[in-house]
């Protein structure tokens, strides 16, 4: 069980997370949905320990979270310049000798010879996902893992997530692509203004989403049209 108890986090006087309390079942995929700037990424950074909360506690299986046993895939992925994709993956698979680097590179259509500074956003994301696979840890925090991926790569990532769930990994995903959350997650937490608003099952979330967006498109089109005229 991943437990967050009354987490508060502020940047100076700006409160970002306000009393976040969550209990997420181990071995499942959990989604975090919310608008831009609602604090999803900050929450993942706090869980991983890159940021220290002002209040509250976080535990995984009743122990403090260990960075060595957690994978954090950030929304923006950077790698060392002048290293090829294969070498980058070799670095991250250092402690995982069974990881089949060449086969995984092939699945995401890499030759292994690309230099990291020449990769597009989507390719960086794919390499980031491969690095997360190579690390092979029980807790995974994935920040916008579907951003920039082409259709085929989305399908590969869906398959990877299913396989991770089968192997009992606990996964927390943020995404703006709501369909991907509905398709992959066992529970979805909606997030706004630094608070968890509601927890949904995927089907409940889907229905809520449809209700929420009904009529919104026409309203937005009218507002934007008026502004641009």
């Amino acid at each position, binding site marked *: 069980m991943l437990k967050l108890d009354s987490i508060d986090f502020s940047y100076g006087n700006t409160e970002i997370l306000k009393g976040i309390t969550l209990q997420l079942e181990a071995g499942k995929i959990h989604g975090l949905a919310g608008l831009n700037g609602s604090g999803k990424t900050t929450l993942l950074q706090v869980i991983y320990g890159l940021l220290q909360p002002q209040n509250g506690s976080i535990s995984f299986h009743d122990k403090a979270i260990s960075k060595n046993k957690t994978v954090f895939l950030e929304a923006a992925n*950077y790698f060392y310049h002048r290293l090829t994709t294969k070498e980058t993956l070799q*670095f991250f698979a250092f402690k995982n000798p069974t990881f089949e680097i060449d086969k995984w590179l092939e699945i995401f259509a890499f030759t292994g010879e690309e230099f990291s500074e020449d990769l597009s956003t989507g390719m960086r994301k794919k390499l980031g996902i491969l690095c997360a696979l190579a690390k092979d840890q029980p807790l995974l925090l994935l920040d916008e893992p579907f951003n920039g991926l082409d259709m085929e790569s989305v399908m590969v990532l869906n398959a990877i997530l299913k396989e991770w769930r089968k192997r009992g990994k606990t996964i927390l995903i943020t995404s703006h692509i709501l369909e991907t959350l509905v398709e992959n997650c066992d529970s979805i937490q909606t997030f706004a203004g630094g608070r968890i608003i509601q927890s949904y099952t995927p089907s409940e979330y889907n229905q809520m989403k449809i209700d929420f967006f009904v009529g919104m498109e026409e309203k937005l089109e009218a507002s934007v049209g008026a502004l641009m005229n």
Partner: protein
Amino acid sequence: MSWIIPFLKIRWLQTQRAFTETGITGMILALAILIGFIYWWTEKLLGSPAILVLPTLALTSIHFYRSDHRFLHIHFPKQKHVLLAVEYLFFTSPFFLCGCYFQPIWTSLLLLLALLLPFAPIISLAKTPVKLPFIHLIPVRFFEWKANLRENPWIWLLVFLMPFFVFVHIGFPIASWVLELLAISGLYKQNEDWQFVNLNNSTASNFLYEKFKLHFSCLLLFNVPAMVLFGFLSPDLVWIPLVFIILLFFHIAYNLVCKYAFFEPNQQMPPNQIWLGIGILALFIPPLLALPFFMGLRFYFRSLSNLYPYFNA
């Protein structure tokens, strides 16, 4: 030519920011010590107005390292090198003019060129990485060496091969080791992502210890064959390679702590570059060696606290 004034304003802002990032108190302290040493040393050797050298060096190096190559590359792709040259001449001109007043022109020119020494490592000769046939033999844990070999293959080839010309003249290996001292700083001009840092280690001190071990072993593998050959051919001068290997170890250790004391993930040309420049200069002015030594100790503890968020508490 209308771009000149806005451009100079932006560059001035960048210089101000560089002072803040580098730590103005530390900078002033280091400058004071440097000026004292250089004044004492150069007065004895050259009788030069050395007090002008250091402010010029500091201004030029800060300006150079804050030059924001990406900004220049996007907005002034054709004028980039001309602009850098004009700025360098502008900042060094007071020194040069004073130098000409107090001493022969050639001495001033020589010192002007010496001021370029700290910038040598950041000059990359290969704009696109060079595919080297043997590079896969180097383990990826030495990723800084791998990347830099691809970036500056000819410099490293010279560093590796020149010592074997000891048969021709004893100056070849010495020149090679001097070149190596300059080239090594190039290994630390880019910061890796934090995910590279905390992958295999549980604490910051453990990480730094492993880094020292890796880089020292790489240095030994790279240099020992030539140094043994030198010692074999010139047994009475065996102290020369020994001095150089100690200097190289010291230089690598200083570069490492300097890098991680100012570490911010994925940053290119981080603010530690001025300290690396001072470290290089100190290697060529022996009385200054105390400065990187004490700053190195300080940077070690600063590295530990700076890396703390990336490791388990």
